[in-house]
């Protein structure tokens, strides 16, 4: 259950099991789509990829297409599930809000040592913007991909204008998807974001990290659980890895 605080373990649940499945289904199928999409270009023989052990199939366009379709089933179904499931539940935490752009700049500047981070919610403002961007890229890839699939199956003589639009949207957003993926990976490299990485694997992040960086989120969930602010003795708390220790310059308490 998202938002559950586990004080004895110094953890807070950031993502439910379902959300983890959604994320990894989209991530893994997205990477398979990217790879097999690349192999739909005539590059495997030219670049000798076909000679790499285990990639002998890469020059066979039909095999690549088959895997591409299979991955598209997971990718599309997971994306649709995500939108409708969370939409039905009214969960809007990842949707951009007013002021996210300027706040993102403040956060990004702080990541490089300029200024301080504002108190943040469960998701960072730039995460919400990136989410909207990635969602748009994924939506365009899905729509154009479905048009191309329909053409392959039922309408090879579909209007050339529609085919060209679908093709070029698919190709351009394929590049944008890759760039967005690189940006996503780059965000992980930033040290302040490291504590969030375990969250996308285990669903949980450290409570002390969440209190420090996502106080608005913790404020939202704590009253509901009626948990006292300090329930763990310092000495009982699990040790914090050296590289994840937070240097807090705002010691007001």
């Amino acid at each position: 259950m998202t938002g559950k605080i586990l004080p004895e373990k110094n953890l807070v649940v950031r993502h439910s099991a379902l959300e983890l499945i959604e994320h990894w289904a989209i991530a893994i199928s997205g990477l398979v789509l990217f790879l097999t999409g690349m192999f739909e270009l005539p590059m495997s023989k030219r670049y000798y990829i076909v000679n790499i052990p285990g990639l002998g199939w890469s020059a066979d366009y039909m095999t690549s297409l088959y895997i591409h379709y299979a991955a598209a089933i997971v990718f599309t179904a997971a994306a649709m599930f995500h939108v409708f499931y969370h939409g039905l539940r009214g969960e809007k935490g990842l949707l951009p809000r007013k002021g996210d752009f300027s706040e993102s700049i403040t956060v990004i500047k702080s990541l490089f040592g300029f200024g301080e981070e504002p108190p943040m919610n469960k998701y960072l403002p730039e995460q919400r913007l990136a989410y909207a961007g990635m969602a748009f890229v994924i939506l365009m890839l899905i729509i154009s991909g479905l048009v191309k699939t329909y053409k392959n199956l039922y309408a090879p003589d579909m209007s050339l204008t529609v085919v060209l639009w679908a093709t070029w949207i698919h190709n351009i957003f394929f590049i944008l998807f890759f760039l967005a993926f690189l940006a996503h990976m780059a965000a992980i490299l930033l040290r302040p974001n490291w504590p969030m990485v375990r969250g996308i694997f285990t669903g949980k992040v450290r409570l002390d990290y969440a209190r420090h960086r996502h106080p608005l989120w913790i404020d939202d969930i704590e009253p509901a659980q009626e948990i006292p602010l300090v329930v763990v003795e310092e000495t009982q708390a699990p040790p914090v890895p050296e590289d994840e220790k937070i240097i807090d310059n705002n010691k007001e308490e």
Partner: protein
Amino acid sequence: MSRQSKFQIGRRSFLKITAGAAIISGVGLPKKSFAGTDEQLSTLIDLSLCDGCADRKVPACVSACKTINKDKIPQVAQPIPIPWPRKTIEDWSKKREVFKRLTPYNFIYVHKAEVNMAGQKKTVFVPRRCMHCDNPACATICPFSANHKNKNGAVVIDQSICFGGAKCRDVCPWEIPQRQSGVGIYLHILPEYMGNGVMYKCDLCVERLAANKLPGCVEACPREALLIGTRSAIEKMAGSRAGRMNGYIYGKTQNGGTSTLYVSPVPFEEINKTMTKKPGQPDMKVEVQRRMARTDSMGKAALAAPVLGIAAAGVAGAWNWLSHRKDKTGKEE
């Protein structure tokens, strides 16, 4: 001998049959144009009529095609950029006159097949060019949609956006499209690393069709061995001719169906035996599966995936709601 006379009868009755079929279909003689319409067209190649233009150095269909397309390929870059890392280039610019195979400068050639039928030698001439398939993989999976099937059935490469990756040739069961390196859009982007020229093949003379003219090969054939007409008229005519000559049809089912129908008094298995598949010289196997068909079921599932995702969301949402309701009721009790 009896087959030969049947064959001649078939040919003599050609005009009558043609006129009959035309009257039934109400569209005029198939030899005449159906140009400029979106109506699905087919071509008929009657091997009982083609004699390979024995009296000419170059068959009339080949010659006409060459003349029509002589300026299709622009000036080839010199030197042609050498691709990296595989350094293959294909340059036909100095062998434009070649007419006994498909090249970027030659979209049709005539294969001479000497077959043995019931102890008798028989010579058949087989014009070969793009079959204009019903569901052409060369067009549907072109990464840039440079190749497209028109409503009238013609499969046409747009040379202005073709990168010459030759994927279309790889997926064509007859490996029809041919590449000329050193021309095309790739020269303006990253010629060493992406693309390798432009692909060329028969486009059924779409521009001539649009101008109310017949395809060059059809118009030039002195024996009317090549015809064009509406799909239904040509299919009817092919069936009728094959029946009369006790012959065979090729192209109706191969690769999932094509809009080129060969009619022959000789089995295509026998004709195929005279063909050795080489670059630019396709064979004529009778069993030609549409290779892309094995991806169809997965493609259909991909088309259904949005509905699957939404349905799963509905089920999960309902489950969630019921669980919460149960928890709430339990707490109240």
